[in-house]
């Protein structure tokens, strides 16, 4: 355990070595929230408007919630795995008494901690500029379920990302393309990061709920906003938990095959 605490610390230190990079990433996040914020506040100019079950307060809470969830769920360092495999740097880790998957999970957590602390500060500042009215969840049970959903989402996204990066074992040049497709396109649009999923036609929604994506951002926020019945919440938690377990099993299996392939090529 101490091992991974040290990895956490050094990873944290390294993020600061790329200061400009980090700041640009944060700026991008703030711009994104501003864009979505103004879009929705234009739609809900009249405070009485209610669309797709959202009123002005709830949609703005949704936008700010997404902002925090982005830092928690989507900020990640594991995107570097593909490069490490392609360049043969994986060798360094294989020589050490360390679990590569746990190593990257630790680095992801460190990245999330850093991003979350920045996002919190930014949100306070944005709050004073934009003065939105928030929906504050007060039911402790609902908050607890929300946190469970977030943990599931964090692990699931990590699994998804690692899986996509492991493509590099077989296609050394394929890491970037698969990352773009799965992470940028699918995750951004199908997870609820840009718009709430429940504004889509019901048929599409039903398909989406069978996939892991809505459980990354949309579902946890729905729990926070208290928009789901207890049955629906538990049912979704179950699906999301199954996806999470599935990811864990699959990445470990793919890893075992991947390093055999890696070694066969002899990088």
């Amino acid at each position, binding site marked *: 355990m*101490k*091992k991974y605490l040290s990895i956490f610390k*050094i990873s944290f230190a390294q993020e600061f070595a790329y200061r400009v990079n980090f700041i640009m990433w944060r700026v991008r996040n703030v711009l994104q929230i501003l864009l979505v914020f103004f879009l929705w506040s234009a739609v809900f100019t009249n405070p009485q408007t209610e669309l797709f079950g959202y009123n002005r307060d709830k949609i703005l809470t949704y936008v700010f919630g997404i902002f925090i969830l982005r830092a928690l769920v989507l900020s990640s360092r594991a995107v570097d795995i593909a490069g490490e495999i392609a360049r043969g740097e994986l060798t360094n880790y294989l*020589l050490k*008494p*360390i679990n590569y998957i746990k190593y990257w999970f630790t680095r992801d957590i460190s990245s999330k901690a850093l991003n979350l602390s920045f996002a919190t500060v930014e949100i306070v500042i944005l709050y004073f500029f934009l003065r939105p009215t928030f929906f504050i969840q007060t039911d402790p049970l609902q908050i607890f379920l929300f946190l469970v959903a977030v943990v599931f989402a964090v692990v699931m996204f990590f699994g998804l990302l690692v899986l996509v990066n492991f493509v590099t074992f077989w296609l050394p040049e394929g890491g970037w393309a698969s990352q773009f497709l799965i992470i940028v396109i699918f995750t951004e649009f199908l997870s609820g990061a840009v718009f709430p999923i429940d504004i889509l036609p019901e048929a599409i929604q039903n398909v989406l709920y069978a996939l892991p994506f809505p459980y990354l951002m949309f579902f946890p926020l729905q729990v926070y906003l208290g928009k789901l019945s207890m049955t629906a919440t538990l049912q979704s938690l179950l699906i999301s938990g199954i996806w999470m377990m599935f990811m864990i099993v699959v990445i470990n299996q793919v890893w075992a095959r991947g390093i055999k392939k890696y*070694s066969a*090529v002899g990088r």
Partner: protein
Amino acid sequence: MDKAIIVDHLIKNFEVTEKKQGVAGAFSSLISPKKKTVRALREISFSIKPGELVGFIGPNGAGKTTTLKVLSGLLYPTSGFTQVLGFDPWDRNPKFLKEISLVMGQKNQLWWDLPAIETFELNRAIYEIPERIYKESLNELVDMLDVKKFLNIQVRRLSLGQRMRLELIAALLHKPKVLFLDEPTIGLDVVAQAKMRDFIYDYNKRCKATILLTSHNMDDVVNLAKRVIVIDKGKILFDGELRELVSRYAKDKIIKIYLSKESDIKQLEKIGKVKKIDFPQAVLVVPRATAAAAAAELLHHFPVADLTIEEEPVEEIIRKVFSGEVKISEKQ
């Protein structure tokens, strides 16, 4: 344990896809990739005792690095038996990994954007080195390699020589009992090479570590290894004392003479191959068997002031072994 490393009938094949030249070639290899098997190791066997320092030599692509990678658990052997410190390397048992280290001249583990000391701290945690022992061995290594002033500088701002020394520290903090060194002096200047060699020699003596070293640098091998294994095209050609390699393949002797006055240099050619003439000195290479006769003839026919008969330099012999000028028969 009487053997630190055992390798028995080890075979390693690689599957490679051939890529043809040009656009049409790239397209055809996309549709029907041609697989080719490269036989990197063809049944090699050897064993190494604890505390031994063995030089592993051979031309590029001979299979040296492949052997080191199999022994450190990076490559899965196609067939054959390997054992290091009683472990099967491929299992990558944490206990095994804590006892070995592989240093590759062209690969680095130091975090590029951070000072080296951060990587050292990380390795302390990964290898679970107790604080007190870590401090001790860090100080020792830092002194021996003279890098105290570079510890807190971002790695990317260091020179290659400085970085290589720090890489070595990162690889040795956990005091491995078995050390695989792949081209440890590559790219270093002469002074840095000498420092590195002194250090390796010292580490072997002090920690009773088993070291397997590959190098293209003859100085490394000659200065460090008593025993050498010569490998080429995946086969072991020689395994034994360096001295024995030299005596077996030193087919020539070198005669150096000092002439007291100028004489017909053409005549020297009749006695042996003239390697260098820099009046008054001349250097001749003659076959070992006729060295005495050649010397007598020189003394008889030339105004020789001084004459010495020497062995060929080791580097020269190994160079000839590599270039195929002398044929090495297979290991008996």
